[in-house]
């Protein structure tokens, strides 16, 4: 139960925001940050817990977004069903890429490059295929009814996204306490040792990638409903692959709250940059790059790691060594 308390506290705090303010600027900022957190949480499952660093989570985000949009626009499917189908399709793409990459025995940077390549191939395909609207993109018709997963106000969007994030947060400690989670971490720590102990490393990694892709695809589907427009560069572009790994690495990969913390910090920095320097294109990416270097150099376990160290230091402060050892 103890593992779920911080999650409950954070989610309750975020859920209270619309009660305090109805400012669209604030809510829009939080939607953008939570979207990054959700996408990052997907990456965190595979990268943080599983140790498989993907550079191509755009493949899942984009699939979630396109399936959600195209099913509605071209085939008249209900938005909610299309959203669910987007998640399933994203998971399927994750399983397929995972099966190909992991069966081929790709690890480390080879795995990262292959995922990047798959995302780029999907981006190019989406920019030429008629079904995706090719270079023009896909516009979801405005239909401000809840049945169409569209809302006049940003508040319902925000709360739905928060619910998705909360779900992804609760999933992590649940996985960490399961056999699947124990084996996933074992594969991260030492794959050969895990295999010698009866762990089917390939199957575990494919399963993790499938689940990871599903979470990130949910972010893509939500994006499509929130902005009502996607094109190949948005859906499958490298920007989302970068955000997916930046948030968890800054916040603390392999921790439950890391991606959310990281997303809030990174997005706050991005907005602050815009305030100071105006809307110079690409400046936020420069800031992200700087943050990433600082984190990797000085806080390899991210903000969550720093917080744990600070907590230990606080607990030990003012005690004799013997007492500290006792605590």
């Amino acid at each position, binding site marked *: 139960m103890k593992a779920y308390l911080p999650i409950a506290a954070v989610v309750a705090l975020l859920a209270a925001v619309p009660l305090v303010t109805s400012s669209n600027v604030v809510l829009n900022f939080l939607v953008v940050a939570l979207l990054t957190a959700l996408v990052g949480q997907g990456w965190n499952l595979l990268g943080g817990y599983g140790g498989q660093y993907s550079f191509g989570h755009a493949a899942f985000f984009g699939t979630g977004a396109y399936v959600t949009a195209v099913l509605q626009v071209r085939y008249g499917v209900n938005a909610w069903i299309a959203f669910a189908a987007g998640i399933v399709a994203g998971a399927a793409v994750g399983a397929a890429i995972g099966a190909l990459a992991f069966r081929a025995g790709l690890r480390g940077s080879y795995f990262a490059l292959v995922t990047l390549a798959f995302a780029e191939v999907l981006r190019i395909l989406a920019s030429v295929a008629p079904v995706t609207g090719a270079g023009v993109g896909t516009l979801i018709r405005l239909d401000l009814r809840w049945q169409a997963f569209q809302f006049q106000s940003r508040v319902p969007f925000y709360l739905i996204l928060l619910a998705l994030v909360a779900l992804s947060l609760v999933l992590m400690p649940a996985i960490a*306490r399961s*056999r699947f989670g*124990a084996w996933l971490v074992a594969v991260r*720590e*030492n794959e*050969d040792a895990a*295999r010698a*102990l009866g762990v089917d*490393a390939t199957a575990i990694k494919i399963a993790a990638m499938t689940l990871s892709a599903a979470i990130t695809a949910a972010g893509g589907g939500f994006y499509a409903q929130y902005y009502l427009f996607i094109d190949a560069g948005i859906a499958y572009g490298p920007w989302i692959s970068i955000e997916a790994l930046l948030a968890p690495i800054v916040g603390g990969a392999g921790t439950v709250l890391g991606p959310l913390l990281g997303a809030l910090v990174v997005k706050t920095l991005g907005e602050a940059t815009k305030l100071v320097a105006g809307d110079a294109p690409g400046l936020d990416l420069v800031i992200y790059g700087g943050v990433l270097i600082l984190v990797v150099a000085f806080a390899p376990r991210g903000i969550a790691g720093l917080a744990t160290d600070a907590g230990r230091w606080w607990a030990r402060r003012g005690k004799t060594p013997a007492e500290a050892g006792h605590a």
Partner: protein
Amino acid sequence: MPDPLLAVEGVSMRFGGLLAVDQASFAAAPGRITALIGPNGAGKTTLFAAISGFLRPTAGRVVFDGADVTGLPPHRLARRGIARTFQIAQPFAGLTVRENIAVGAHVRHPARTAALAAADGVAQAVGLARDIDKPAAALTVAGRKRLELARALAIEPRLLLLDEVLAGLNPSEIREMVPVVRSIAARGVTIVMIEHVMQAVMSLAELCYVLAEGRIIAQGAPQAIAREPRVIEAYLGRGAAQRMTGEGADAGA
């Protein structure tokens, strides 16, 4: 001899132009400790890798409990009951000792609490109970060797392949470890051990195979093996056995 639990039949491992293991055959009787010795580079660890599924033999068969298991992947062999340790300890460094052992225990115990409880029991058996909550990275060399053993035992194996569990230990640590290995065999686990510490081989193993340049060159009781001219030559070079006896004769004169 009863039907062997493990029978290695003419296994060869070729890497390009290098024949690392050349038609090696040996058998391990159930409940016994069998030793595999030989000079460095003889192909002992390669042979273990071929038995435990990390390498697929170029030729030959591995028969476990009457079934041909040649070329099965490591995790399938582990589930059938073949456990191995690594020569260089491979702990899950970021996890605690208990979590390390639980990874193996999960094969038989899907539930987390059951796996952790089983891990506690195994830690007790190999003398790691005091370190159970330590991170694996904080263990000494001797501790890591015990952890290798504990993890392998946690899958409740019928056959345990030990790759130099005594290497890197000091004499007193070896004296502590030997009874642990003996007690595992006493519980009915068949053990095949690669070992350089001959004193331990002598006191533990009933049967000993000698591997040199990829071939099994001798087999027998450890005490007898140690006097075999072929074995002495494999370790010390051609003519060494003769020189040693010759020098012995000179000294006597």
